[in-house]
């Protein structure tokens, strides 16, 4: 799938806007770009076969679940901050000039490397391959794998730290009269009294004179620092760049975790659908882009729909009047497929899903420019909102059905949505012209004529009185039991 089309899809679903709100503009852009790479890798794995796809999906899910776990999130966030800081220092290092600057730069890298490794090693994991992703295992094992090199650096740095800390308190005594400072004297003293430590901290440059005095006071210490830097430069730079390489992917995973947390906070149901080659079947699918409306507790009141797509069937035809939620449903389906391919939990209660080669969303009307060539449509998810034309809705409908059949023949699955003008819905108008083997989804209208934003597979001749109302609101016994079973709180 072309990156441009993937980005169109991410933008048109509202997912990019949602990520921007949750992560900020820069992080959202970076995450979307990484999502594309991950999506493509999953699609490639899917083309290679079920085993490859399932293995990749499991690994991606383990990665995301590992970082998103509330018990781990802060840990990985701390690790990321350390690795990111180390990466930034590494990047700045080649730009330093002069022996003193280079020395200080390397000391900083050594400090940050040890700090990062300490942070990584602060949590113990069992590193069971069934529960922890390979990439995270490699990160956890890094301090152990390079323990010998790190121990040497640690030893030298401990010496340098200890020796430097025997210097640090400098007492400057001075007098001041009428706004002028004069009569200054300097002492280098012993340790800071405990009750003064960290009492008030600020940062200032060390005057050159003081710096020179320090060096002349302890020449052996400063020559030892220089020797350490010369000997360990290569090892330090190699180790630091190896461990800081984890930062990029970790940042992406943390962003996904933040997105996931935002969904959880809004009570959006999340599930990990079973991969299937034949059917996509999702219960209570939510359009998370509605969260952009910023209504309180929207997740609890959001209308959810069920989705069924069969590989062998034609694409489905969805029909409904303006404002019945067609676009929203299509967005929900697109986001669900993107998330599924990335290994992210899908915003639905439960289900199974087919892997896809691409996700194409034409929410502003059918546009050939927004679709890939014929040979790339196979196994892709295609969601098209057919353009409106009030003069001849029947002609539009015919065109839409023709195109739907053509897309299906090219191997795509998905939904073409068409706007209807009759309040009689599908059973009254559309179903008469649509071939019987094209599945139909109809917008459900309430008894009071109001929109429900729900869609149902058409069953003709629905009658409804009290029992029908009970069924419509899911209050019959089987629906009640299903609701409790799919409610994660029970």
């Amino acid at each position, binding site marked *: 799938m072309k990156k441009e089309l993937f980005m169109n899809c991410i933008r048109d679903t509202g997912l990019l806007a949602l990520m921007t709100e949750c992560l900020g503009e820069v992080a959202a852009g970076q995450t979307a770009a990484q999502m594309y790479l991950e999506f493509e890798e999953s699609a490639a794995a899917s083309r290679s076969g079920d085993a490859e796809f399932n293995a990749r999906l499991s690994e991606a899910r383990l990665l995301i679940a590992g970082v998103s776990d509330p018990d781990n999130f802060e840990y990985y966030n701390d690790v990321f901050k350390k690795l990111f800081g180390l990466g930034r220092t590494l990047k700045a290092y080649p730009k330093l000039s002069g022996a003193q600057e280079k020395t200080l730069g390397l000391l900083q890298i050594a400090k940050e490397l040890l700090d990062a490794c300490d942070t990584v090693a602060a949590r113990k994991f069992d590193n069971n391959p069934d529960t922890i992703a390979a990439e995270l295992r490699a990160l956890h094992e890094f301090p152990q794998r390079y323990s010998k090199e790190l121990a040497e650096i640690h030893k030298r740095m401990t010496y340098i730290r200890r020796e430097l800390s025997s210097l640090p308190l*400098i*007492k400057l*005594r*001075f007098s001041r009269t009428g706004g002028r400072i004069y009569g200054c004297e300097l*002492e280098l003293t*012993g340790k800071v009294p405990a009750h003064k430590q960290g009492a008030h901290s600020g*940062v200032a440059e060390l005057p050159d004179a003081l710096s020179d005095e320090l060096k002349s006071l302890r020449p052996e210490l400063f020559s030892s620092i220089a020797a350490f830097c010369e000997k360990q430069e290569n090892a330090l730079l190699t180790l630091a760049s190896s461990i800081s390489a984890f930062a990029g992917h970790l940042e992406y995973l943390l962003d996904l975790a933040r997105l996931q947390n935002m969904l959880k906070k809004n009570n959006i149901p999340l599930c990990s659908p079973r991969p299937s080659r034949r059917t996509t079947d999702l219960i209570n699918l939510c359009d998370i882009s509605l969260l952009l409306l910023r209504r309180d507790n929207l997740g609890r009141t959001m209308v959810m729909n069920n989705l069924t797509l069969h590989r062998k069937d034609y694409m489905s035809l969805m029909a409904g009047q303006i404002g019945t939620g067609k676009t929203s449903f299509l967005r929900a389906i697109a986001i669900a497929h993107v998330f599924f391919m990335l290994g992210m939990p899908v915003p639905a209660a439960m289900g199974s899903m087919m892997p896809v080669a691409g996700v194409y969303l034409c929410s502003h009307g059918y546009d050939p420019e927004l679709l890939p060539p014929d040979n790339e449509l196979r196994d892709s998810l295609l969601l098209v909102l057919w353009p409106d034309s009030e003069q001849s809705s029947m002609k539009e409908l015919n065109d839409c059905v023709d195109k739907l059949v053509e897309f299906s023949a090219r191997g795509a699955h998905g939904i073409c949505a068409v706007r209807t003008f009759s309040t009689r819905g599908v059973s009254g108008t559309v179903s008469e012209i649509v071939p019987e083997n094209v599945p139909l989804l109809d917008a459900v209208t309430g008894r009071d004529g109001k929109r429900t934003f729900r869609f149902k597979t058409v069953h003709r001749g629905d009658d409804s009185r*009290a029992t029908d109302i009970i069924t419509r609101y899911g*209050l019959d016994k089987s629906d009640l039991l299903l609701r409790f079973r799919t409610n994660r709180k029970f």
Partner: protein
Amino acid sequence: MSTINLLELIPDDRIKIIGAADLQLERLPALVYPDEADAEKRAYASGVLRAPLCRPENITHRRDIARDFLASGDLLDRLEQISAGAGDYRRTWQDERRQLFADLHSDDGAPVSDIEAKFAMLKLNLRSFLQLSGRLKELIDILASSTLYAEGLLEFKETCVKLYASHAFSDVPRAARLLEADTSDYTAELLLGLNESLTVETVNLNMLYTADDNAAGADEYDSDELSAHITAEEIEPLLLAALDALNDHTVESCEALIGLFQELFTELRFYRFCLDFCRALSNAGSHYIFPQVTEAESGVTSILALRDPLEVLSGEGTAVPHNILLTPERSGIVVTGPGGVGKTALLRAVCTAQILAQCGLPVICKDASLSIRSGIFVSFTDVSDPNRDLLRRFESEAQAMAKIIDSLTPWALVALNELFETVSFADAADALYNIFSVMTQHNIAFFATTHMPRLAERFMEVDRITAMQMTAEGRLEPMQ
């Protein structure tokens, strides 16, 4: 600095209440505070009633503190007095700082003298710090002069004492002297720490005024002297950094103290409402208790001689107290009876008691043991338009019920008043039967009223549900 924690011992969530309007809870604050001038207190009390807690530990915590306030006469008044007005104090202080800043800076924002400006600001901040620390000392004295049993109040006293003894306050005498002194001439010392990048991290600024001071200060350190020639220009940035740090520290300490008094005042509002509510109940001649509240998983609502505070305080309604028992084994009650005997009032009383208990407030009864309910979901029949098509009214009820079911959490309490009364028995019975059965299977307690005796009869044989009838005299009896 520590937070106060008079309202919550441990972090807590708030339970969800759906249909609170049907319970008429907003009438309760109006009955406790009938005076128009108390609108703010009424609004606060309404907020309290909308936010029942989830943790029994916190409810016990509130109860114990309320008991101390009830027993100790004017303690609450004195604490309110000392904590009031912290916000005004902050505004005045900030106005003074703005004014001083303007006085010491020229029109283009540049300071007349960096060091002068920072010293003047430090003096102003130190003065506020001294005043606030004096108020803290007074607060400690009030707490020390009262007999306290509640862990919450004892811990609060301990927090204040520790705070007053902390390092942040150890500089108070020195600060006082700085205020008294003429600071145009002085000697000072800067204690500077170095980090590993050989950059200075300013540790402290000590003001020395006399030769004695000077000598006393020198004794604190192991001297390992080294002379160096440092010019005034080199010292100035260090001194400015130290002054900035000291100023920031002082402002932070003042803000923390103001925050402490503000937080205290805010938290005391709950106990003011609690005491006023108790007083109103006493004046109405009612016996109230603070119920025993247990973990949600115990699933018990056991209340002996329950009365509705709305009825008691307004002097309306029946005076018949009722006994209520819900357990995990029998977690639903269906009450039937003729119209106007008090079924709805009882349903409201049960929910109100649960809410009051989970807020840490008293309940009018002889004895009560209530487990936490994770949510309270109330649905009353839609009677807004009696002429509306019955099927549409039924549909709106079904919709409301579906919404409740989607929001349910384990160990919630559901109260249904005359649900589905708009349709025939045949249409409603199966639906209600299914809803009640499924709820009890999932540890949801419910209390339902119905005008259909046949419906209540249907539950007589169901294991987990108690069918009851209310007599014309308003007594509650098991169905025979």
